[in-house]
């Protein structure tokens, strides 16, 4: 019996079953807290025609930007995609489809997907191009638009520490979209910097309970910095 031990022994095993045409949710904001080894494995694996849901699309040559090189992404759902020349080229060439969604909607739509809420009203985006085709309704004296939940066939998530049961703690602002992607993936794969035994993490301090985690792997991370800013 394996019980609740979510560990897998290789990145290949971690992404077993990820197939062409699937929807992939990826945690991370910019290059902070991205599941960099899982992304690299998807590149190696060559899965194509992916719909990728992530706040950003990495940079040229790192993070989700790697999946642009062999045109593995068919459609990107993101809030900001301005950091990537290859992205721009593929978009302008019509090789890549993009659906821009406000950052807060993106986060809330993934949470809703994980929480069994198919749609919710929000003031964000009312009166803007993203409201086109969406229902508008007033509550109180304010108009809101209806936004739909997002779920994915797979979610790839970067945690800091996890126990073998898949209870995950994130570190600092590397948390960002990771817990939300974890909730909304049919199969959620988490890579972390350290795996400990059950009982070593404080139950009151778990960010992602193991119930959301299907597979767990320990990796090493480059953690590239996008805007290195220091004070003297």
């Amino acid at each position: 019996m394996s019980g609740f031990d979510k560990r897998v022994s290789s990145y290949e095993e971690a992404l077993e079953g990820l197939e062409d045409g699937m929807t992939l949710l990826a945690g991370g904001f910019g290059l902070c807290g991205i599941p960099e080894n899982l992304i690299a494995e998807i590149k190696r694996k060559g899965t194509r025609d992916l719909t990728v849901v992530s706040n950003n699309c990495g940079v040229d040559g790192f993070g989700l930007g790697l999946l642009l090189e062999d045109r593995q992404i068919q459609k990107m759902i993101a809030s900001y995609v301005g950091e990537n020349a290859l992205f721009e080229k593929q978009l302008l060439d019509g090789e890549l489809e993009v659906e821009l969604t406000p950052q807060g909607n993106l986060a809330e739509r993934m949470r809703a997907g994980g929480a069994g809420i198919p749609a919710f009203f929000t003031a964000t985006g009312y009166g803007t191009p993203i409201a086109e085709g969406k229902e508008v309704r007033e509550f109180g004296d304010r108009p809101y638009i209806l936004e739909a939940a997002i779920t994915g066939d797979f979610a790839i998530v970067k945690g800091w520490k996890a126990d073998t049961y898949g209870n995950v703690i994130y570190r600092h602002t590397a948390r960002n979209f990771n817990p939300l992607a974890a909730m909304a993936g049919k199969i959620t794969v988490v890579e972390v910097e350290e795996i400990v035994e059950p009982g070593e993490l404080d139950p009151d301090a778990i960010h992602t309970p193991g119930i959301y985690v299907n597979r767990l792997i320990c990796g090493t991370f480059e953690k590239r910095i996008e805007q290195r800013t220091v004070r003297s």
Partner: protein
Amino acid sequence: MALTREQMAQRVAKELEDGFYVNLGIGIPTLVANYVPDNIEVMLQSENGLLGMGQFPTEEELDADMINAGKQTVTAMKGASIMDSAESFAMIRGGHIDLTVLGAFEVDVNGDIASWMVPGKLIKGMGGAMDLVAGADNIIVTMTHASRSGESKLLQKCTLPLTGAGCIKRVLTDIAYLEIEDGAFVLKERAPGVSVEEIIAKTAGKLVVPDHVPEMDIPA
């Protein structure tokens, strides 16, 4: 004289109150943090999930896991808290931020704001801007009053795709501070040495000019 970027930030900083939770957008808004009056404390929210953003790190403090919404490495102040993106935007969208300061391309007399896309140019995305303008009651837009080619950015109706509708009440430009009331810009203050006539000439949207328009109190 038109205000410098630093002077614009200084003027906005006068709107800060002790105990305010504040979200500062990229550009001039970011500079506001440098002019927080000595006798008050404010806490900066960064929408990627940090409440209580501190200064930039030293080389020793540099940490790839601690960045702000502009993707710059930062530190957390004492008393900071860190949350996921849904919680961070719950805070924003639920109206819990006391003051949001944002740049814009255009603002109009209805409080509409356009700040995220120019048709024909590459669209990079709205990031958190639509959430920020829809979430806060108290927003100050900072931008130059007119474009480099001299076209007013304070319009009767925005021409660019909107970031939000009916959400802006206060605008600080390089030549004036204005409030939006009843379908008009109301001129509240002018930059030192800038005439009311210049402001009138550079404002395309309906403008209400009171009898007396004081000069801003800004260090030269």
